[in-house]
């Protein structure tokens, strides 16, 4: 579970920013117990000073704080190529999540969050960071293929005529896997992995075939050409070239 605690200095430093002292302490204790180095700040001003000094790898940022609020702080950090940011917000709607991710947060969690969920997100963000991929690379997460546009943050697919195309969650996850791996044959297992990770695999294992056929129908019917091709005994492939906007 926890990273090897041989050399504390090599462990990533996480900065917890929340105006609630108890919660700050609880998160700090929880993450320290899992082997991370953790610092805490009670508002944006303290956080910025600590970022200067401590150079944390990751900031867990409360959105609603007295003084400068989390959103504007996150925007600032994103533009300054600061540490990765996980927003922890008392606002939990889709719109809030989209706004948070759009201004450059690496992930967005609604309160109350399960501690394990937070830990999983922390790990994922740190892993992506060490792989050299951060939120800043994801700026303008809009993919274009054959005139279609997919905004992965807003979950917004537009046909070449600009019409909003509704996708179910499963279809969206699949299409996202396709545009991130275009012009490559993706096997059913590979698609399952890309689209749904590990957790809910059982459910989606049953549904993935109908999801693929629905997605193909939606795209191919509207495009009047084949965008997703079935490769016999191998899997599926997104045919057109994909560009990142």
């Amino acid at each position: 579970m926890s990273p090897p605690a041989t050399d504390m200095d090599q462990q990533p430093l996480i900065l917890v920013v929340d105006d609630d002292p108890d919660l700050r302490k609880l998160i700090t204790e929880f993450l320290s117990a899992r082997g991370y180095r953790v610092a805490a700040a009670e508002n944006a001003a303290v956080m910025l000073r600590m970022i200067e000094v401590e150079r944390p790898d990751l900031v867990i940022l409360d959105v609603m704080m007295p003084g400068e609020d989390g959103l504007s702080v996150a925007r600032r950090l994103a533009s300054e190529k600061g540490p990765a940011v996980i927003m922890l917000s008392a606002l939990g709607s889709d719109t809030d999540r989209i706004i948070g991710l759009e201004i450059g947060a690496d992930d967005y969690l609604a309160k109350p969050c399960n501690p394990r969920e937070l830990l999983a997100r922390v790990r994922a963000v740190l892993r992506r960071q060490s792989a050299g991929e951060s939120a800043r690379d994801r700026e303008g997460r809009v993919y274009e293929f054959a005139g279609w546009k997919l905004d992965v943050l807003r979950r917004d697919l537009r046909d070449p005529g600009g019409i909003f195309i509704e996708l179910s969650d499963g279809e969206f996850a699949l299409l996202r896997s396709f545009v991130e791996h275009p012009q490559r044959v993706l096997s059913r297992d590979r698609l399952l992995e890309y689209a749904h990770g590990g957790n809910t695999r059982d459910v989606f294992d049953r549904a993935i075939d109908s999801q693929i056929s629905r997605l193909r129908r939606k795209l191919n019917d509207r495009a009047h050409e084949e965008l997703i091709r079935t490769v016999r005994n191998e899997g599926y492939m997104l045919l057109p070239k994909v560009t990142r906007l």
Partner: protein
Amino acid sequence: MWRSLSIYGRTFLLMLAALVVAEAVGIAFVIYRPPTHDAPVQLSTVVRVLAGRGAGSGGGARGPGGGHPADDGHPPDGGGGPPPGDGAPPGGPGHFPGGPMGPPGAPPDITLATLVSPNQPAPTNTKLAPADTLRTLVASQLGADAARVIFYATASDEHSASTALIGSIMLRDSFLAGVRRPDGTWCYVNRVVEGFPNALERRAMLLFALGAATLMPLAWLFARALSAPIRRFSEAAQRLGMDPNAPALPREGPKEMLVAVDSFNSMQARLNRLIRERTNMVGAIAHDLRTPLTRLAFRIDDLPSALREKVDRDIQEMKTMISAALDFIRDRSLTPQLERLDFRLLVEGVVDNHSDLGHDVTLQAGVPLTLTGNPLALRRMVTNLVENALKYGERARLRLRVVDDRCVLDIDDDGPGIPESLQEQVFEPFFRLESSRNRDTGGIGLGLSTVRAIVLEHGGEVTLGNRKGGGLRVSVMLPVG
């Protein structure tokens, strides 16, 4: 200036206008009136005329003796036979039926000619008939042979002549009286009383009609202008409370209306502020619960896992409730982002999401349906309805169709339905059916309220009904386009 005039001012001006028109009619009536001529005629006047002694000053019947030109053309007309010099008049010679033989030329008066035409022995244009009593009376007054006298009158005049003293006989109706003079010419008196409407009445009616025709459009415009602000007012009152973002009423119309509009606007503002405050309060409570819940989630981390999972479930349930409350509030306060979207695809997406998770959800989709709306909100609306159907009715059957330019989405379930008396209440925020409370199905009674808020925002409506075979049907109607 007209726009801001008070109702009183407007009414006053209208009355003034009506008065002016009515006066104009009266004035025109006086100027153009034809002479009065329908007064009763004394029999003695007729006798005087026939005797060649001229008309009495008071009598309406003026007829010259034969050969004398009439002093004016107004009835009753007196006329002579063929004028001196003779000549066959147009229309041929007239013979008075029952009168003595002779070749009287037709009098120049067309009415007489009609009356006494040989082809029409009994006058037909009026109800004149030979009046023997009057004839005898006239003959005796003239001292003439009755055979030389004719008299046609209406039955009523004849009748009154038979019962009255001679001096008081008044001829009220049309008559034709004539005496043949020794030279063979006729002297006659013809009086024609027109029935309703006579020339005078026709003219008066025409003027009144003209007056009315002039006034009518004015009155219509006036009434419309007067009622328009009141109509707008009532429409705004209808909207009140449904749409907290409804714009204030424009300050238009008469002064009294402006006062009402101002009161209404301030009432609407007060009401909206109240709604907003309540909304904010619910939002703040929901929001403030999140931090202690998060603390709780972290505090239980050390608990034995069986207990921790139970507490965790409770936390998740509370989280769902808070989210529902915040979603509901947000739906009403956020300015909607409108998009043109394919509603069929949207419904399909929601259905697919649930069937992917193994739920019994089917959709009978019709044609593609483009409408303008907020995709996030519409998706939540359909999701809430599908989740309700699954929660209370085990399965959801959706049907999408177009009826009269509106798209109709029916969601049927196999649950117990909702008693008709509660079908309005279930849309109220925080209202929950007893059955759902007992069954611990979660939620805080905002699902249908959210649905209705979203549907209303999109200009549609949502209705509930129990199906005959059991189960509930929710119907959502949305305008297409």
